[in-house]
């Protein structure tokens, strides 16, 4: 009986632990490697960049050590773009997990 309980706990622990864990967002494990946070530019500065791309902004957020933008392009496609928090350079863009842009050398 004890071994059954132990095994059940063993088997269920990861499921239960994850039930309380916040859901991970698609981050593609992108690492932007910026310097200290005090040197980061305000995230709102990305709004103009998004507008200049011709995209409609859905959401701005900090993801790991990157700025992340959710937007729609003119064709209505949902894009997930990662920007460097210091330089605000566009580093990589995913469309539903498929990489459609990557900065040269990144």
């Amino acid at each position, binding site marked *: 009986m004890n071994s*059954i309980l132990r095994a059940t706990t063993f088997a269920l622990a990861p*499921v239960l632990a994850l039930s309380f864990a916040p859901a*991970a967002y*698609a981050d593609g494990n992108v690492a932007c490697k910026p310097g200290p946070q005090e040197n980061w530019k305000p995230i709102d500065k990305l709004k103009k960049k998004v507008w200049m791309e011709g995209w409609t902004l859905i959401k701005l957020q900090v993801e790991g050590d990157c700025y992340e933008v959710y937007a729609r392009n003119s064709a209505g496609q949902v894009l997930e773009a990662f920007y460097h928090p210091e330089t605000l350079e566009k580093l990589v863009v995913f469309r*539903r*997990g*498929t990489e459609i842009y990557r900065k040269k050398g990144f």
Partner: protein
Amino acid sequence: MKRKQLKTLVSVGLAVPGAFMLYDFAAGTTLAMDLLEPTGVLSVRLMILAMLAGPLVEAFGTNRFFAAWLMLRRNLGVAAFGYVLLHLLFYAVDMTPPGILDELGLPGIWTGWLALALLIPSAAISFDSAVRALGRRWKTVQRLVYLALAVAFTHWLLLAWDWLPAALHIAPLAIAWLLRFRQRQAIVRHRSLS
């Protein structure tokens, strides 16, 4: 508590997170896009919980706890399918039909549709008279769930590119399958000895 009451109570309990999600969406406090991940992950978790009971019982024998878990397998499975449908609903609201058609060919997307298609037969026969009518074939159809789970994991990995959460989810099932395999081997060995 009577069997039927317990099952109803569990089903209602399992529907609660979905009700909160729908409420948040209707109230405009959450984007449909932000509900995609929670609904998807929840359906995978429920599917895993439904699939764990069988191998654990086979590996360790039955007791009251396992018996109750086995009894609730259908509730867990049907709830998992319910969250798949909610996942689809939020996706449809977020994308609109032309957007959905446009990205149908992307690997991260068509794998999701395939997982849904594979789950439909199992969900469609999740009632007693279907079990009786199909007999042994019922179990064969339910085995599609294994394939559906594998495709769902592929869908998840292709969208998130983060293997760790998916690996942590599959771990309990992998352990349970391994224990069941060892148990079956032991039975075969025992039989061949006697």
